């Protein structure tokens, strides 16, 4: 379990983090959502012991030598070494004796090919991200924090990463804290969301509730729906068969039902998430 109480970090006159209090339970994935400079990385650096808070306390509930695994900013690896060598070096630093089999198992677990022996500098960002996670998982910590893990990943990579995080939370009962400014990705993987703005948590709660507050528009895709009279009362943007319309959740639900009854084949329907809307709603 990750627990913080009143964490504050000041750099001279600048307050990077103000009185941050949050809890992430074991087996749970929580998200920190915030724009660049909101204080996400500062919070993570405090939680991993890289910097000290000016005031406040935090605890990571664990009896293990390595309580928390993390990737902060980008996965920073030895580019001139292979993936296996990177893991061996980081394992040796913490006196962890890994056999070749252990290393290969870890690589497979994060979706990397253990037969690849070339330098990490040849790897794509997504592959480096996976190797970074493997490094974070060394020594089997009870908690994991990932700073902007979706950055630079293709849709397939994002999907794989989401799957991996959910698996780690469920199967290894890890407390996972993920930061991002990509609301959509966080909403797909986190049960709890914390909105961080200018170093302050401005809103916390269940992901669904927070998204509910943020959703001002819905996106609906379907054959010939643009001509339906049912859409007439709504403020909307029409882009071929894609329609963005503003409504309350209840109205959107009724509209969807009515369009189906009218005989339209609906290909997709969902809330249009917008970070600006989310902040303005807090």
């Amino acid at each position, binding site marked *: 379990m990750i627990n913080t109480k009143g964490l504050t970090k000041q750099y001279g006159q600048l307050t990077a983090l103000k009185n941050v209090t949050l809890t992430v339970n074991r087996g749970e994935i929580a998200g920190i959502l915030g724009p660049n400079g909101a204080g996400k990385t500062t919070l993570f650096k405090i939680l*991993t012991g*890289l910097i000290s808070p000016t005031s406040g306390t935090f605890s990571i509930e664990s009896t293990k030598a390595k309580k928390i695994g*993390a990737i902060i900013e980008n*996965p920073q690896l030895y*580019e001139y070494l292979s993936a296996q060598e990177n893991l061996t070096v980081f394992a040796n*630093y913490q006196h962890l004796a890994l056999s070749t089999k252990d290393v290969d198992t870890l690589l497979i677990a994060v979706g990397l090919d253990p037969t690849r022996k070339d330098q990490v500098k040849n790897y794509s960002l997504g592959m480096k991200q996976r190797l970074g996670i493997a490094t974070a998982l060394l020594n089997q910590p009870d908690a994991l924090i990932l700073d902007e893990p979706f950055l630079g990943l293709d849709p397939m990579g994002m999907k794989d990463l989401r799957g991996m995080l959910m698996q780690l939370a469920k199967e290894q009962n890890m407390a996972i804290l993920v930061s991002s400014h990509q609301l959509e990705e966080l909403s797909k993987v986190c049960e709890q969301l914390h909105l961080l703005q200018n170093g302050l948590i401005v809103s916390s709660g269940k992901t669904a509730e927070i998204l509910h507050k943020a959703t001002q528009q819905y996106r609906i895709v379907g054959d010939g729906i643009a001509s339906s009279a049912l859409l007439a009362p709504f403020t909307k943007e029409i882009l071929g068969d894609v329609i963005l319309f503003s409504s309350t959740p209840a109205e959107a639900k009724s509209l969807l039902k009515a369009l189906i009854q009218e005989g339209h084949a609906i290909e997709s329907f969902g809330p249009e998430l917008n970070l600006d809307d989310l902040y303005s709603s807090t």
Partner: protein
Amino acid sequence: MIGLAKIELLKLFRQQRTLYGISVIFAIELFIVAGAYVQGRDVLELLLENLSKTFVLEGNLMNGHLVMYLVLNSLWFNFPLIMMILVSGMLTNEHKDGTIQTIFLQAVSKRLFIIGKFMAAIIFSVMVSLFVLVTSMLMAYTVFGNGDLITYLEGLNFFAPEVAFQRILLGFGSGILLMTFYGVTSISLAVWFKDQTITWILCAFVLIFNGLLLKVDFGFLNQWLLPKMTNAWQQFFYYELNWSVIAHQHLLLLLYTVLIALIGGFSFIKKEIG
């Protein structure tokens, strides 16, 4: 701790710049040997012109011992500079590439980490010194053969071949301590300044400043000042060995090495990584 030093050395030798650095050291040795081969005898004749009017100089004076002595003179600047660049990179590169952050996201003790860096710096310094000793010895004695060694320290000193060889070995032994001092200093500089380019500039500055202070007479302070201690290896090329001065200078150099390592290590432990 040995394990941590091993990791550092593995990383050091897997980087291309280490290969380049060692190649440059070898190229300097080659250059010294080639220079001695092409011009050595002429220069030596010119230097000994007056002496040969009064004394009969016999045998091969442009020999392997003299070439080894010339190689030893590179301990003032050339070899330490390259070594300091390589050794300081062991820490500045971690900052530049951000890998220091990844290391301290693991269960790693700062104290053990920095001790590992210092140990690797010491081992690498000894390895480079031994590399210079072996390669230059092979080249010098193969190309120039054996003979008496002449040095000019408060007058001309002549050493018979067997004594000359002992003095060369003692000089290199002292050189190993000096290179270790520079290795440890470069890690401490990297701790204090983190940035690669700034650390390189400061390494060069330390060597230049040291070279300048070496020529300045500070009176009674001479026996305590660090720059004077970096010249300790020259003590083995006086005709009479003054063991009390030799012991004093080497112990003091060792003390300075330990002190710089302690201050550097303590600073590292106190500093935040992020």
